[in-house]
């Protein structure tokens, strides 16, 4: 019998039961909750007279709607305020752990979970948010769920799930200097397509992956959903356990050795069989930029904007043409001729301390180009902000002309005031370049933090390696 994949192992650990048709009931360890996808779930269980199964599993935080500026005024948008107040009220009522606005631990849900040690190897982690895949960096099975499932987990601590297929993406060999986790994952999505991982859990492996820090692995797994897979995984190793140790929700000292022994098995067996395998040569990966309205519409910075006329598949070519029209781009234009209006450094993809360091390194001693209307840095959490300020990164950013903001989801999805105006072009470290994602009519180009910073100081896209 073939060995097990990492996904098989975590699934087996958590399967409460399985019916004849193969549908499983999966036990959930950690339930992260935010203000946007939870109010209807709380309302639903209340109306049905149901209670919460395991309150300790829940960690709640407001993030999507919170302002990143003028916090002393609170939330001025009454509709957004009601949503955050509703989360606060529900958490108070059920006595759930919540990091409210003003708490230094508040931040983007997928930043604060790992930061607190609330995401641990071998766990099942869910949240009413598709970027829950982030937590797979810890060899945890983590995926986004809808609001009905949020309610289901609250009431039963379980989810009805069909097991997905196993897929492995291996980055053979190291990546070059100046190439980041963001570039790796964008390249992967470019290769497999935005539906390439549908129905699969993707395990990332190979030297290009194991070399990544935990924060890099989080960036990588975060965008697994943009490749169609609900969950991404990286095997547990020393990098993982070093990161976890000593965090507030991590195993206590007297439990640590037992936990370590268990986590040692959190990798795919050598003889495990995957339903699908992809290999990419690490050395071939360059800094990436998206040019269209889907994350799969991506290319290396050294290439020009692609030309639909060179694509034989008519449906694909017309999709490309539609995207170029929305983006206001001409085929075959080199990226350094594409001028930007705004820069956003933040989001659950790229707002952790290493991201801010990488962006600050490029910004240091330089100025945001005059043609750029706004360049903003939004740390992922209050603790990330504090750390960055202790290192003086905030001063580097503000001296260069960036705005230094308060933590939240901000312009990744523009639910608060931070947004693009129609036609504005943005170099963004977020995860989706869909039409209107950052504001109606806005044009988003996804890049790494260093590349976003480089775009800010030059006013156009440029290979960051040319600046250093």
């Amino acid at each position, binding site marked *: 019998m073939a060995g097990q994949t990492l996904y098989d192992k975590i699934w087996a650990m958590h399967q*409460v039961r399985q019916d004849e*048709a193969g*549908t499983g*009931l999966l*036990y959930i*360890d950690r339930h992260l909750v935010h203000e*946007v*996808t939870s*109010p*209807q779930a709380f*309302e639903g269980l209340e109306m049905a007279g149901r209670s919460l*199964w395991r309150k*300790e599993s829940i960690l709640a935080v407001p993030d999507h709607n919170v302002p990143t500026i003028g916090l002393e005024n609170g939330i001025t948008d009454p*509709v957004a305020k*009601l*949503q955050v107040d509703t989360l606060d009220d529900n958490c108070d009522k059920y006595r759930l752990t919540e990091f409210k606005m003003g708490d230094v631990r508040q931040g983007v849900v997928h930043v604060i979970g790992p930061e607190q040690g609330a995401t*641990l190897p071998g*766990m099942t982690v869910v949240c*009413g*948010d*598709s970027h*829950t895949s982030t937590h797979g960096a810890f060899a945890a099975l983590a995926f*986004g*769920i*809808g*609001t*009905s499932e949020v*309610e*289901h987990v609250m*009431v*039963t*601590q*379980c989810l*009805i799930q*069909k097991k997905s297929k196993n897929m492995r993406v291996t980055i053979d060999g190291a990546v070059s200097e100046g190439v980041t986790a963001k570039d790796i994952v964008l390249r992967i999505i470019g290769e497999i397509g*935005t*539906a390439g991982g*549908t*129905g699969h859990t993707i395990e990332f492996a190979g030297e290009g992956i194991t070399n990544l820090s935990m924060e890099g692995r989080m960036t990588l797994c975060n965008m697994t959903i943009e490749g*169609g*897979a*609900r969950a991404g995984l990286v095997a547990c190793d020393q990098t993982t356990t070093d990161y976890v140790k000593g965090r507030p*929700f991590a*195993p*206590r000292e007297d*439990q640590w050795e*037992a936990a370590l022994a*268990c986590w040692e098995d959190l990798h795919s067996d050598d003889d495990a069989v995957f339903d699908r395998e992809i290999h990419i040569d690490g050395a071939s990966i360059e800094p990436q930029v998206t040019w269209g309205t*889907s994350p799969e519409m991506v290319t290396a910075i050294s290439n020009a904007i692609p030309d639909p006329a060179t694509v034989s598949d008519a*449906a694909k070519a017309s*999709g490309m043409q539609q995207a170029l029209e929305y983006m206001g781009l001409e085929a075959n234009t080199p990226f350094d001729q594409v001028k930007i209006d705004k820069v956003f450094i933040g989001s659950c993809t790229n707002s952790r301390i290493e991201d801010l360091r990488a962006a600050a390194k490029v910004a240091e001693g330089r100025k945001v180009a005059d043609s750029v209307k706004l360049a903003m840095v939004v740390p992922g959490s209050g603790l990330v902000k504090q750390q960055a300020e202790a290192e003086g990164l905030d001063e580097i950013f503000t001296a260069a002309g960036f705005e230094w903001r308060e933590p939240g989801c901000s312009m990744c*999805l*523009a*639910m608060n005031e931070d947004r693009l105006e129609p036609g504005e072009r943005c170099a963004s470290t977020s995860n*989706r370049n*869909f*039409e*209107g*994602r950052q504001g*109606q009519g806005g044009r988003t180009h996804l890049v790494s933090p260093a590349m976003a910073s480089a775009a800010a100081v030059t006013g156009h896209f440029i290979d960051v390696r040319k600046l250093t």
Partner: protein
Amino acid sequence: MEKFETFSGIVAAIDRSNIDTDAIIPKQYLKSIKRTGFGVNLFDDWRYLDPGAPGEDNAQRRPSLDFVLNQSPYKHAQVLLARENFACGSSREHAVWALMDFGIKVVIAPSYADIFYNNSFKNGFLPIALSASIVDQLFEEFEQSDDFELDIDLENQCVTNAAGVKMPFEIDEFRKYCLLNGLDDIGLSMQHADQIKNFEQQYYASYPWLGNA
């Protein structure tokens, strides 16, 4: 949840692949704490020429007359036809709620994003996957007709056009059963409460650090 019954309905088609959930229901409307009222903002960016905000009177906005759902008879569409990877992107169940609130009960497309597909069944909403070539044909029939209708029969897993051509589809047995009977997942899972409790006991004995508050 309401039982899913056989019906014949007007089909509206949007000829795009990778229609994302931001397109189906833009973020500003996610601020609502209710499950209802999203229908007027379904496909908001494509449906209106001017920007909208939650709580605004949509009757005062300028509709984009080119957009299918603003045209008669598609204002009353109950079936939506689209291309592959429908509803990719975020996990927002509001996408399903918005489609249903508009009056749509079924989507037909070659493939779906996993989270949306899952969310659909929790609401009695049916996403039907038909092959790309059949979807191509349906788009052609839609183009050639002014009031294209399809008959949707979940019991017999079949879509039928006016000419009587039957197009069978696959669906998971359990999901079909729940949809036909209007069953609530939570109620079904709670029948296994004792099994979940037993599981937990063994689980926390094996992994005590996961039981920390």
